[in-house]
């Protein structure tokens, strides 16, 4: 089987025996790959710290039947700022899990690599509210993988949803008016301002989202709804959702 070169971002790592690790990578042109990095746990490994989560590398990979192997890796971006800042680390980790869970092995979705690359770059810099950035990322990943959240009007009758709390139907992936609301299925109720904010997040570029601000409570409501929508689309839970929501709730209780 052949070797191939590609840009990749390390999503997560699993220990494999004494010295090796299996990496989960999103590549620019070859989709989600599971890759063995031999000897990476040894001090003095030629990969060093290059194959840690968040790192973007130019890699030479050998395609295997189930698992690929890393032959060479050269750092393109370390995203080092995401290690030393706990809030950025946490928001970045959820991004990595979203990408890993929204793809099947070797599945390729155009632009998914790019949106992760851009989002990690933006997260590393100055961000007014990283929770809004993560919410936007989650909505965009859903849209890119074929589940564009329906946020503009009732997804059944097309009527505008207005007044009071809006119902977001997670299973159906969008808002419903009181008339069309089904009695089964999971849903969250959103403030109309939060729904308006989610529409903007879905539309705006990440660099613009980095400058957006809103109240702490609104940001949490928007983030929670966006991640739960993604979970409903992926049909699997995000382990990091509880970790980040607990962190944000702890911060909200402390006066700023």
């Amino acid at each position, binding site marked *: 089987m052949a070797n191939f070169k590609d840009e990749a971002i390390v999503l*997560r790592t699993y220990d494999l*025996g*004494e010295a090796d690790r299996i990496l989960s990578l999103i590549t620019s042109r070859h989709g989600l790959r599971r890759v063995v990095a031999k000897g990476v746990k040894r*001090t*003095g490994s*030629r*990969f*060093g*710290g*290059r194959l*840690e*989560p*968040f790192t973007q590398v130019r890699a030479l990979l050998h395609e295997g039947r189930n698992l690929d192997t890393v032959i060479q890796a050269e*750092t393109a971006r*370390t995203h*080092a700022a*995401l*290690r*030393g*800042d*706990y809030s950025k*680390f*946490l928001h970045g*980790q*959820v991004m*990595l*899990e979203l990408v*890993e869970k929204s793809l099947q092995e070797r599945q390729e979705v155009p632009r998914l690599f790019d949106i992760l690359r851009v989002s990690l770059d933006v997260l590393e810099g100055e961000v007014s509210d990283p929770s809004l950035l993560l919410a936007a990322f989650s909505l965009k990943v859903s849209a890119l993988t074929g589940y564009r959240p329906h946020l503009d009007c009732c997804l059944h009758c097309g009527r505008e949803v207005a007044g009071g709390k809006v119902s977001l139907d997670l299973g159906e992936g969008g808002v419903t008016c009181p008339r069309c609301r089904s009695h089964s299925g999971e849903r969250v109720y959103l403030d109309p301002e939060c729904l308006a904010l989610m529409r903007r997040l879905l539309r705006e570029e990440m660099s613009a989202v980095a400058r957006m601000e809103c109240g702490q409570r609104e940001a949490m409501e928007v983030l929670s709804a966006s991640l739960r929508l993604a979970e409903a689309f992926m049909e699997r839970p995000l*382990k*990091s959702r*509880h*970790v*980040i929501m*607990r*962190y944000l709730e702890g911060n909200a209780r402390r006066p700023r």
Partner: protein
Amino acid sequence: MLYAPPIARLVEELSKLPGIGQKTAQRLTFHLLKVPQEEARALAEAIVEAREKVAFCARCFNFAQGELCEFCANPRRDPSLVCVVERPQDIVAVERTGEFRGLYHVLGGAISPIDGIGPEDLKVRELLERVRKDGVSEVIMATNPRVEGEATAAYLAGLLKPLGVKVTRIASGIPVGGDLEYADEITLGRALKGRLEL
């Protein structure tokens, strides 16, 4: 292949161990069936004894045979210095250097959101409690220099500094016997930042 129930049971139990697959479990099982009876019995007894006699230190969560581990119970160790590690086996590594005379605190892992592990799942509250009560003057972060270990150290530093304690991080650098040419960017960058005057 179908094994007699006692063999199948041993294979199944062994294959639950980390790093042991079905094949290795079978090999170990056949090995244990061949060795002298006493040898197999000694292994079984060692497992039972370790589980029954070893618990966690009430202060630092290292393995301990009584209420406190050997370090916490030793009056010659300096209780004002606390070295924070992820796992008990990391203590063994630090001890081998012979450079540290303080006490330890074992977190029980590192924060790893992608695995669903947050600060609440580690011995973080207990560390803060110790620093508040036990007259600790310096906390040394010796979590692994991986993304999760670094973020855990950053998180803990944020909680500890307001308590007025000095928080330090073990240095990263080029491994002794290594080659600059092959050093990755983060390691070499840190080695430069942490350079020492000659």
